[in-house]
């Protein structure tokens, strides 16, 4: 440790010479670079194998077809045309859009309101915060199996509560019907919001705590009520976080898989009414009986990648800071 101290002192004399920007010799520079790359190489290899190469490979595979006896042959747009002709493809996209929309209405607004309320409370703050975040820590399968148990039409808790209240019971996730806001999808969104809202709530809370108190003071002196203070102080002050989370949430919900997979026991619901796009990728690639086809799955993956890229790009463009 002592050498660090003396090093700091000695640097004062060493620094001017180092700043002289002399052209350095080639050999030490090469050695320095080799050393730096030695630190980098492990991560670069992992990125190459498990991130960069799969991206390229997915695009290539989407234009190929398997050949009997092994290997792949080019096939042009066939895979894309095939998946566009699959009715499940459109169904899955419609469901995913439905999930994303409902998750926004419920999963985006609820945490914000909860955060605003929690920020006003002067008691039990730690307890409430821990409470909201606890489900986020559960293994998702645990949480979802619990909800599947509650949703069970024969012996589930939720139907029992409805019966006690003399309300009509529901099949919940297994409720048939493919209307745009179907009971089945709302059930999936409720479970998903319960287990995921904690992180968004805490991020909002942190953002709310950074709002300068003088702004509220000034707004109140001007005679603004609580709702107008939220509208004109809270929301503009947290805009950046709201916008970022909105985008991340849409990207995350579009990739919905486990919620619908576990709640419907891998089935996708009655008439595929909660089948999601990622579930369809999984089924194309790994679950379709007999003829599992990696290439159609890749084509669907590329479509999803493009949709999300266009969405993120467009979203950032629309919400960019003007001026």
């Amino acid at each position, binding site marked *: *440790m*002592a050498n*660090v*101290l003396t*090093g*700091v002192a*000695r*640097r004062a004399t060493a620094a001017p010479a180092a700043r002289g920007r002399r052209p350095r010799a080639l050999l030490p520079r090469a050695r*320095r670079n080799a050393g*730096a*790359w030695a*630190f*980098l190489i*492990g991560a*670069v290899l*992992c990125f190459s*194998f*498990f*991130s960069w*190469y799969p*991206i390229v490979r*997915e695009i290539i*595979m989407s234009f190929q077809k398997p050949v009997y006896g092994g290997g792949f042959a080019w096939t042009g747009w066939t895979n894309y045309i095939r998946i566009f002709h699959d009715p499940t493809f459109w169904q899955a996209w419609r469901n995913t859009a439905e999930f994303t929309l409902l998750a926004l209405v419920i999963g985006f607004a609820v945490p914000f309101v909860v955060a605003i309320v929690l920020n006003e*409370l*002067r008691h039990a703050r730690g307890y*409430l915060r821990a*409470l*909201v975040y*606890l*489900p986020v*820590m*559960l293994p998702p*399968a*645990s949480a979802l*199996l*619990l909800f*599947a*148990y*509650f949703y069970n039409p*024969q*012996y589930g808790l939720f139907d029992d509560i409805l019966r006690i209240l003399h309300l009509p019971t529901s099949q919940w996730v297994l409720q048939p019907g493919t209307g745009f806001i179907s009971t089945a999808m709302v059930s999936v969104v409720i479970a998903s919001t319960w287990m995921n809202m904690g992180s968004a709530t*805490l*991020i909002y*809370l942190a953002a*709310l*705590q950074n*709002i300068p*108190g003088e702004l*509220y003071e000034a707004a109140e002196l001007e005679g603004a009520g609580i709702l107008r203070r*939220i509208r004109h102080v*809270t929301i503009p002050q947290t805009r950046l976080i709201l916008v970022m989370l909105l985008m991340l949430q849409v990207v995350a919900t579009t*990739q919905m898989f486990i919620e619908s*997979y*576990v709640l419907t026991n891998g089935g996708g619901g009655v008439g595929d009414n909660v089948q999601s796009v990622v579930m369809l*990728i999984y089924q194309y690639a*790994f679950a379709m009986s007999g003829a599992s086809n990696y290439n159609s799955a890749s084509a669907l*993956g590329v479509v*999803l*990648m493009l949709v999300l890229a266009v969405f*993120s790009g467009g979203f950032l463009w629309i919400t960019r800071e003007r001026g």
Partner: protein
Amino acid sequence: MASLASASARARMAGRRQTTTTRTLISEVSLNRPRGKIIYRVVLTLVLVVFTLVFIGPMYFLFADGLKSTQETIATPPTLYPHQLNPGNFVQSWNRLDVGLMLLNTVYYAVGALVLQLVFDVAAAYSLSKLRPVLGNVVFFLMLATLMIPVTVLVVPQFLTVDNLPVFHWNLIGSPAAIWLPSVANAFNIFLLKRFFDSIPTDYIDAASVDGASRLMILWRIVLPISRPIIAVVSIFSLVAVWKDFLWPLLVEYGYTPTRETLNVGIWQASYGGGTPENLIIAASAMAAVPTILFFLIFQRNIMAGLTSGGIRG
């Protein structure tokens, strides 16, 4: 010694937000009025009751219903508490689903992934931040670009890559490496670590290198001690990510005897077949939840700090 201590203190201060209570939406003045006091009490009680019901309520059933008998679990109307305690369910569930082995697997995968991520991602971020090799910026840009591409989109080519690793022709399916190695390719870790390393003054590093410390020594003795807060954040994220992942372990560790599944996949699989009674599944879900709840209660402060200071992660 003194300079190091002050630097780490400064780094710690920078990581922590000022938490002096400034005024919020509603002022103390209006809260202290009689009417304000009443409304506040009512709202506080309401929030406490509703939140406890909504968030603890389901978890109560997670633990209570595992103790019920099979008939009682599926009885209508439901019983609020187990009328007949069957702690044996937990033992039965533990043995039947091999929960112990799944727990061991999960810990093994999570800790291995954590160690590899810390070694490779810290080294890479240090190199990109302080050693700055040629093409470093290109590499960093390519890493960040992967943040734009959602992980689930790539399952098919990733699965095929793990099935037959290019160049080496290794089949990693079923081995822990199938989870460990892809976890290292985490651009978010690199980004967080590099951003933190960038804030460490170069003076310290120059000083040590004048004294003849090697780069590894500098990383170990200077950079890492200062970076403890961000390392904690990255560690927690990486442990939780392995613990909560579903689709990937389902693809690469599924269907071996004895089981190689993680808890998250294993308890789902037990319910999938049908044969397992509901109370045993609930008991298994409860047992799978216990370690994470304990982890949360122990590291609560770090987790929440990481969530807010470490950045946003969907």
